[in-house]
């Protein structure tokens, strides 16, 4: 009988994380080895006992749910507990956490409850290791992935990029304000900036873009590959970002990608994205200028190979985690 795995997520789970879990659940390679199911849990209140030889938490860790996480450990003494850290990073901490010692105490306490803690990018992994947030034997890095097939099928951009794109939640995390301010410094009337997404900063961003008809708000896109097709280059000026899947999608789509050198986005640079050369609006504006001049080329030669590699790497890493965990459980039994 195949071991069973239960994915836990809460209502705070973002769309991106949901898509990663979808990708896992639809993976033939993973399903050949394990049965997977999905369980929503409330952010407050008691959680029931879950089925499964392995329970994978995609939950956000905070002081409020720490007791529930402790109960999770206590109620499943024989299951392998895995936590995937989809949100916290160095920059997140720097920008959002006034009392960092207290926060790291929370993370150490929470992570200690799990048998494995999965980082979604190499840079997140090195942050956790250097801050000693988790025992090194428990720490592993599995770079996130989603289905890139549709992106890899898109025809690559020909000619110099005219249309920049921002894709994501309209929230200060994503730094779209910075991109709008920088874009407005470019004088070329033929350039465009398309912004896909919704969120609480909608009003603020619209106000910033007001009066520049080259900038358009395209709303939420149910079909991300279609959105990607409509742009020539992707900007990811995030203030913090655990991994930045959207950059992977753009790379698979053969688009040049410009990322802030932040957290998991530095992983994207190793995959072919270009990093912003400085801090601030004018630095970004000159980066945009260079892309518009066509001096920054997309670095992906073969889109389909890129998509395939990403999938293979993701599946191999998870299968290895499954193998090791279940071999260890068998040995213990």
């Amino acid at each position, binding site marked *: 009988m195949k071991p069973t795995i239960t994915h836990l997520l809460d209502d705070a789970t973002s769309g991106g994380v949901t898509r990663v879990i979808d990708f896992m659940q639809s993976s033939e390679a993973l399903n050949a080895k394990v049965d997977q199911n999905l369980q929503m849990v409330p952010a407050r209140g008691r959680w029931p006992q879950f089925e499964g030889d392995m329970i994978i938490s995609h939950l956000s860790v905070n002081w409020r749910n720490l007791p529930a996480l402790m109960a999770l450990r206590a109620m499943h003494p024989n299951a392998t507990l895995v936590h995937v850290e989809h949100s916290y990073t160095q*920059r997140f901490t*720097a*920008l959002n956490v*006034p009392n960092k010692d207290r926060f790291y105490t929370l993370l150490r306490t929470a992570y200690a409850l799990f048998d494995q803690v999965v980082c979604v990018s190499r840079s997140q992994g090195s942050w956790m290791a250097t*801050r000693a947030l988790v025992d090194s034997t428990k720490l592993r890095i599995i770079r996130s992935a989603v289905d890139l097939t549709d992106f890899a099928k898109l025809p690559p951009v020909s000619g110099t990029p005219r249309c920049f794109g921002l894709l994501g939640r309209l929230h200060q995390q994503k730094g779209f304000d910075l991109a709008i301010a920088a874009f407005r410094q470019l004088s070329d009337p033929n350039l465009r900036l398309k912004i896909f997404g919704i969120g609480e900063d909608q009003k603020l961003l619209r106000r910033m873009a007001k009066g520049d008809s080259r900038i358009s708000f395209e709303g939420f896109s149910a079909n991300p590959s279609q959105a990607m097709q409509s742009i020539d280059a992707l900007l990811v000026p995030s203030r913090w970002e655990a991994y930045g899947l959207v950059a992977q999608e753009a790379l698979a789509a053969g688009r040049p990608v410009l990322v802030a050198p932040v957290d998991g986005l530095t992983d994207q640079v190793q995959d072919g994205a270009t990093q912003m050369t400085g801090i*601030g609006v004018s630095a970004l504006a000159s980066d945009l200028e260079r892309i518009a001049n066509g001096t920054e080329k997309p670095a992906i030669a073969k889109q389909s190979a890129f998509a395939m590699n990403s999938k293979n790497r993701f599946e191999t890493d998870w299968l290895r985690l499954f193998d090791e965990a279940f071999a260890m459980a068998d040995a213990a039994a």
Partner: protein
Amino acid sequence: MPLATIVVPAFNVSATIAETLDSLQSQTLKDIEIVIIDDGSTDDTRDVVAPYLADKRIRYVSQANRGLAGARNRGIEEARSDIIGFCDADDLWHPDKMRRHVAHFDANPRLGLSYSGSLMIDNESNSLGISQTPRLKGVNAAHIMKRNPVGNGSAAVMRRAALMDIASHPHGTNRAYYFDETFRQSEDIECWLRFALITDWKIEGIRGNLTHYRVALDGLSANTERQLASWERVITKLRPLNPAFFEAHEPAARAYQLRYLARRAVSGSDGGQALSYLRAANQSSLEPLRSEPLKTVTTYLAAYALKYLKLNPLTLRNRATTS
């Protein structure tokens, strides 16, 4: 690998660098390296340094002029240790400074930037009786922006891993920028504030005035307008990193900065200029007045006395700067 590196940016400092190197050579922590970055000096800095190179711990690197930030960046590149301190070639270090900073780092794995207070000295290296005794604990980005507890560029000692987290790679160069080389002033505060904004490393001071910081009183008061402009450039550059933070703290920080410039203007005997800075400070925020009323009021009195009573500026200067 030595335990710590001291980077000494040097530009036309033949008059002072010998004394600086003496103070670094007599550090009680012996396992150090001292990297002198001669930033395109046109005087005989090289000759003054030459005899010191007999000490194998001292290295001399010469480069075309890149400015103070560029010299420090080169020093960081050259450094071999995990702990890197900076001492400008006209300042002096207390013999125990590096030993105590290294102990501070050893005891605090999350510490990225360690600093200490400073004693001001004049051109003859005599104490001016003025010191910078900053807040040492619980320092956050707001403290840095308002009061700059890290202080001058010869007070800070940093962990290499933390420096790596603030490196940027400007276009057209394969060099890393830690300090921003486009600044010719305010490069210190720009670096400390950026460090506080974008990293999770702890910033903390240790007790004692372990840096002797040389000030030319007339030099400090010169060109307050340019100082203000470069400070504003720092704010403009860093604001996008965290707009909400700047919305909350920028007015008060500007008020502190303007009050500081008012005091510099008083030192330069320009009462009118001082008053206009003080007015601008109050318009920006009353926080400096609330939290340090005595300092604000004495600055006002000094400015008024200068402007309307034409009092002896020298006496005033002493009173104003020691309050």
